């Protein structure tokens, strides 16, 4: 009996000692807490790294990022998107945009969530111990990124609430919209602060992080937007002067040169012209959906032709002698529309007959009796009658820009890629435009010529150009030089010409190969477009209007 009692006691003891003493004081094992993050600059840097997600990158994704990079081309007159990315087909282009129905095109909430993160970071960073230079660099980066976030918001929505301190659950949430000019002044001021904190250029290991130059370049664009007709209804010259000064400040850094290598390589290799880029890496996850070459290439190369250049864009490329194709004196030949064009046409666009990709990478085309030259003509490999015909380019063009043809995208579905946020050409164009409105046509022409010469156009613009003719040159130069870089959608809005350009049907071409080998080009409408006055701005999403007293944008 005693033994048994002893045994019971033993069992009890075993059980009780096996019990954990501190059952409830657990901590998450999958995350850091406040105490650690704001004590260690390397963790603070990791937090800052995530803020970069508010900047656009070159990935092709449909979902909840602020990254509408490619889609911006398909909701302007640059391109046609066949998969309705970001609601391009169903919402944006038919004019169905309403506060209820922005689809994934809306960036309001997502951008503000990064602003909150920036505010948390900026409220904490000053007290993180460590190397002051490191701390200042991170502070400068976060300041730049927050300014970028506000820049994105204001170009889409106009004036928005400016928030610079982090919210918590007990904050007073009630706010109203600041004016556009307030926002613009705020953004420019923040970019000055960032510029003061940041190096002109980052070290090689930190390439892609914000720099002083990046901050000044963004400031240039912000002030150009603020001076433009959309936001400068009285044509206030001081705004143009600020825009001009901001552009000139970047030029005067003398840290960048127009890229003089192969023009097409500018978008695939790091070079002297790039002021700010955002990088994406070929990733170790199995996911074919992010390879730029995969979704831009023609169907006969087993690409998807997701974003296909419009005829509207193709027509904006002038001729080799620097004239518009509508100019009767130009070398444009409607029977051979792809001959004698602006050299950039050959670098940016894949058109019928243009060789694309290395022969070794498209052996199946050779096996089928073709070559690596694109066959967009009816019956060709890249036509609706060719391979993967459901992926054929509806406009019969694809983009060469941003594609790296030095590797086989069918095997390697992803490449290291960067998305250009600022480059020197844009600054030249910003400067040229501001100088034009300030009345200095000569400077305008000087900078336009720098860009045209670099592109390979041997005939400079005449010094006699002025007025609307020069204004058109500035605009078409910008349309061509910066195509597919996310500028056009906003440029036509700030110029207040979107009601014309965005109401034109989007055009493509149908190419018939004749018996004698010649080809006939029929230009056809591939998409109707409907732009209404309210579409100069996006509506603030209804879900936000429902919870705040923010004023909605006009017309919605």
């Amino acid at each position: 009996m005693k033994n048994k009692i002893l045994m019971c006691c033993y069992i009890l003891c075993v059980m009780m000692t096996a019990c954990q003493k501190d059952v409830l004081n657990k901590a998450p094992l999958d995350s850091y807490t406040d105490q650690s993050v704001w004590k260690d600059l390397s963790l603070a840097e990791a937090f800052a790294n995530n803020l970069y997600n508010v900047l656009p990158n070159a990935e092709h994704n449909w979902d909840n990022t602020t990254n509408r990079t490619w889609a911006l081309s398909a909701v302007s007159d640059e391109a046609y998107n066949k998969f309705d990315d970001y609601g391009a087909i169903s919402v944006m282009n038919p004019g169905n945009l309403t506060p209820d129905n922005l689809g994934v095109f809306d960036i309001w909430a997502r951008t503000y969530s990064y602003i909150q993160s920036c505010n948390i970071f900026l409220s904490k960073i000053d007290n993180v111990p460590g190397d002051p230079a490191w701390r200042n660099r991170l502070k400068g980066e976060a300041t730049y990124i927050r300014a970028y976030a506000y820049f994105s918001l204001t170009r889409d929505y106009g004036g928005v609430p400016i928030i610079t301190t982090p919210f918590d659950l007990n904050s007073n949430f009630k706010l109203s919209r600041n004016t556009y000019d307030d926002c613009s002044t705020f953004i420019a001021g923040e970019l000055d602060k960032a510029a003061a904190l940041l190096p002109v250029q980052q070290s090689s290991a930190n390439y892609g992080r914000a720099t002083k130059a990046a901050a000044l370049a963004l400031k240039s664009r912000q002030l150009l937007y603020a001076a433009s007709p959309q936001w400068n209804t009285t044509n206030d010259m001081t705004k143009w002067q600020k825009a001009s000064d901001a552009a000139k400040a970047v030029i005067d850094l003398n840290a960048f040169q127009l890229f003089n290598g192969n023009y097409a390589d500018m978008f695939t290799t790091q070079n002297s012209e790039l002021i700010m880029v955002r990088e994406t890496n070929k990733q170790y996850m199995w996911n074919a959906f992010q390879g730029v070459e995969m979704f831009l290439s023609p169907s006969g190369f087993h690409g998807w032709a997701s974003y296909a250049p419009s005829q509207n864009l193709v027509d904006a490329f002038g001729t080799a002698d620097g004239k518009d194709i509508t100019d009767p004196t130009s070398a444009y030949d409607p029977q051979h529309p792809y001959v004698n064009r602006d050299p950039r046409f050959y670098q940016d666009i894949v058109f019928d007959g243009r060789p694309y990709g290395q022969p070794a990478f498209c052996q199946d085309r050779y096996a089928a009796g073709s070559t690596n030259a694109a066959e967009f003509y009816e019956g060709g490999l890249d036509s609706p009658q060719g391979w993967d015909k459901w992926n054929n380019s509806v406009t019969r063009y694809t983009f060469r820009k941003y594609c790296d043809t030095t590797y086989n995208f069918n095997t390697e579905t992803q490449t290291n890629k960067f998305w250009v946020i600022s480059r020197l050409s844009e600054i030249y164009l910003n400067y040229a435009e501001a100088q034009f409105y300030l009345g200095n046509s000569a400077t305008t022409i000087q900078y336009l010529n720098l860009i045209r010469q670099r592109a390979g156009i041997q005939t400079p613009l005449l010094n006699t150009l002025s007025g609307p003719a020069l204004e058109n040159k500035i605009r078409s130069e910008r349309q061509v030089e910066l195509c597919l870089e996310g500028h056009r959608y906003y440029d036509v809005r700030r110029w207040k010409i979107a009601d014309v350009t965005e109401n034109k049907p989007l055009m493509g071409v149908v190419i018939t190969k004749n018996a004698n080998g010649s080809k006939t080009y029929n230009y056809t409408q591939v998409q109707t477009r409907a732009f209404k006055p309210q579409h100069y701005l996006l509506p603030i999403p209804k879900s936000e209007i429902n919870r705040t007293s923010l004023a909605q944008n006009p017309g919605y």
Partner: protein
Amino acid sequence: MNLKSKAKLLLWLHLSKILPTIPLTILIIAAAFTQANAKSTTNYPFTGELKIHGSGPDFTADVIKIEGRVTDEKGAPLPGVSVRIKGTPNGTTTNVDGKYTITVPDRQAVLVFSFLGFSSQEQNIGNSTTVNIVLTAKNATLNEVVVVGYGTQKKGNVVGAVSTLKGDDILQNASPSVSNSLAGQVPGLIINNRSGEPGNDGASLLIRGLNSFGGGTSPLIVVDGIPDRDLNRLNPDDIESVTVLKDASAAIYGVRSANGVILITTKRGKSGKPTIHYDGSYGIQQLTRLMPRVNAWEYMTYYNELNLNQGNTAPYAQSDIDKYKAGNDPNYTSTDWVNAVFRKNAPQDNHSLSVQGGGEQVKYYFSAQSLDQQSNLRNSDEAFKEFNIRSNIDATISKNMKVNLDISARKEDRNNPVLSMASILHEAVSMYPFLPVYWQNGYPDAGVSNGRNPVIMSSSAAGYDMTTNYIVNPKLGFDLKLPYITEGLSLNGYAAFDYNYRAEKTFHQPWDAYTYDLTTNTYSNQRASTSILDLAQDAQLRNENTYFIKLAYDRQFGKHAINVFAGYEQTTTNLDDTYAYRRDLLSNQLDQLFTGSTVGQNATGSAYQDGRESYLGRVAYSYSDKYLAEASFRYNGSFNFPADKRWGLFPAVSLGWKISDEDFFKNNIKFVDHLKLRASWGLMGNDAVAQYLYVARYQLQNNPEYYNYFGGDYTEAKSLYLSATPNANITWEKQDTRNIGFDAAFLSNKLTVSFDAFRFLRSDILAQRNASVPLYTGLSLPAENIGKSLNQGVDFSVNYSETKTVVKYHIGANFTYAKSKIIFRDESPNIPAWQKSTGYAIDSWLVYQTKGIYHTQAEVDNSPHMPGAKPGDLWITDKDGDGQITSNDMVRIPESATPKIMYGFLMGAEYKGIALNLVWSGQAMAKQMILPQAEGSLAAPPAWLYNNRWTPDNPNAQYPRAFNYNDPHNSVPADFWLRDASFMRLKTIELSYTLPANIFERYGVGAVKVFVGATNLFSIDGMQKYGVDPETSNITGVNYPQTRIFRMGLNVNL
């Protein structure tokens, strides 16, 4: 005493860690009682044993010796049956083989056989010397012992809303996932099966509907006292009983009790001859419904219409459409992709073998089960295999000491396609019907791009995703009676160490898939773009430890019966995960990590821990077995809340009155055999919310889409983000749980009725304020204790069973009505009144109200419409009358996807060994939305949509013009797309024949039963014409469909 001071008192109790003093106090009280009632008779009202006192005087002369055997209706021996000579105190009991010997004084003697749970029987001896008796189980199972939280009770004395099922009740369902077997059988349980995928075909369970819109709503599953063991993967043959605690009877589970609790008890050994039981079956699984989709020319026609509607050019040439329509050219064929991906029949087989037996010292139950479930994917190796063993051993090591060791172990093997089921099914409904599965030369087609042919994607050509799950659940327990302190006092406890090692291996490989060019007659292999050769291995070790100890006191003093316990419980969980990845393996011939490239390799890991701790107790008191009262408490701490919000008290009180035992009732209302009135109240909790919301958690970005890279060589820089703004005040959800009900038996206990009405008031619901906090705050909101809901309803069951000489039958019905209503929920301040959810069901739909579709331009012009609306679009009602259609016109409607009514019918009959059993399950007052084009930009429309779509030539159509998932006019939540999800389905039917016992007896084989049965044989509902199962919860209508299972099998008892 107000609540606050109560809490303070309890906090003090906790702080002083006075656990040992609780039993001490009870001991002192108990000892006092013992002194006072030293002479009172003791028995064990809850043990289920009946002791017969004495064996009578010794008759020596002129005695007649009678012997015999007592068995139940199935022929199983009944040990411990009291055999008494009528009119005398003399008697004996049967031994382990059910045999007895008794001496009677004369041939006029009458033997009375009585046994707990069975009808007593009297037998004249006559001239016999052998008297064999078959006792029949009592219809009214009032004396049956049922499992309740931390104990057992006589069914007749249960004062909570508690429903029970016996193990046998769930064996007739052919579904290998146990949760499905509960459907239609338990009042108060809302059960829907959402998928038929092998190994993933369990049902969603709700007890009395939804009570929360923030925290989890799943009931707590407790198997043999251990929380969170997997209900679905139990061997159904191991299950002794299922208890569903629906009201405050669950409050003893404290902070995890508010959603109700399901207790599963496994079988244990019994004294007597060992019984060996085999249960085997072979079944065929069929998908209940598939949504038929359009063929090639219809698809092309539809998308031409769509593109023209959108202002684009028509993508398909009419000449091609004509060729597909003519269908006489082998190069222009049509594929039914959904039927190409799925096959009609998939086998499953299940074998279970058990041994149950034991003697006085040791009792044992051993079992083994093997289950093999194949997939309805046509071209796939997908399968689920499971091997289960269990050993439940009870040893009596002294008069007062019992120990038990239960070990169950399981191996689950899941072989799934390497590409997710969602992507395969997405591809299956998005695939162009004009593409063939295989080209004319037999090469597989490459799909839309990258070889994404769903038939190949689902096959092992694309690789595999194999998961092996090893589960070992040992549990050690003891039960020590302490009569030397005082009679009725006992100490018992257990410790369980649940281990789960899960190893997953994901292997991708490129596959052959060809494009074909008709003009050049060439095939082009897209193998290079299908996939890379890579391998990922993920290993997870989870360990959950449970310790429980209680001191109990159970005794009867005259008419007072008291049952008290106080206990302590803790559970802790730890999980460690390790993941490794390499790509570009040297060859697919050896699928091991070392063969992969070090470039792009990835090794990572993570961990998880939780813990809960409780002090709990209960006092049950009855007077004269007529007035029943119970009070319980649990003082419960959860790791999930900040230190000052961690501990909560969850008390409950239940009362019962067996009014039928009152003389005034007995003497006047003869047709009622039993009537017990019950009422209960409890405060319950729910801590099922995302973890550690009280601390600021900075997590590493693990979505590659948000990775950041810097530097000349695109180096990844780790990113941290704040997962949610911390909520320093977070605590558990509370539920005020009230229930009144009655249990009744009529017609000599043949008719039983149980009825309950309940009112659950859930407050402090853990929900995010994501409707009112402005988006510009950028806050990632944590759950906060802000919501309040009320759920009221009734459930009842009515059962009738009758046993005649050769015929036995039963019929029953159960019914649940649960209506939830939001009292407070965070809402956007500026939404119109008709969108507020206050007063509506928790998951009520918010939809546009429609008047069908616009048939003519005039209808569009003359009514408010969305910008761009055209004939053929949904005709949406302008609810706010502002002349426009905006989201303000959406309306909250009372209907929701969760059924308000759930019911079941049980029918069974047996005649000479032939038995037929049916379980019907049904629901009503539920609506499910099916958005037919929501699956993506290429979705092939279902035939029902296509055939009746609006076109200029078919202006009177029922359905909208061609549209896609982004269409703002038609692919919107509208009542137009809500379908009545009411159904009544024959959940289970089983026909069996038990062969006469004498056939196999000489081979030592006992009962042999053969059976055929079906699960989900048919359903009566309105979803048939849309090609979806009424139990679906998938809005796009694309999921692995539910299954219908036919099976046949054999039961053998040795």
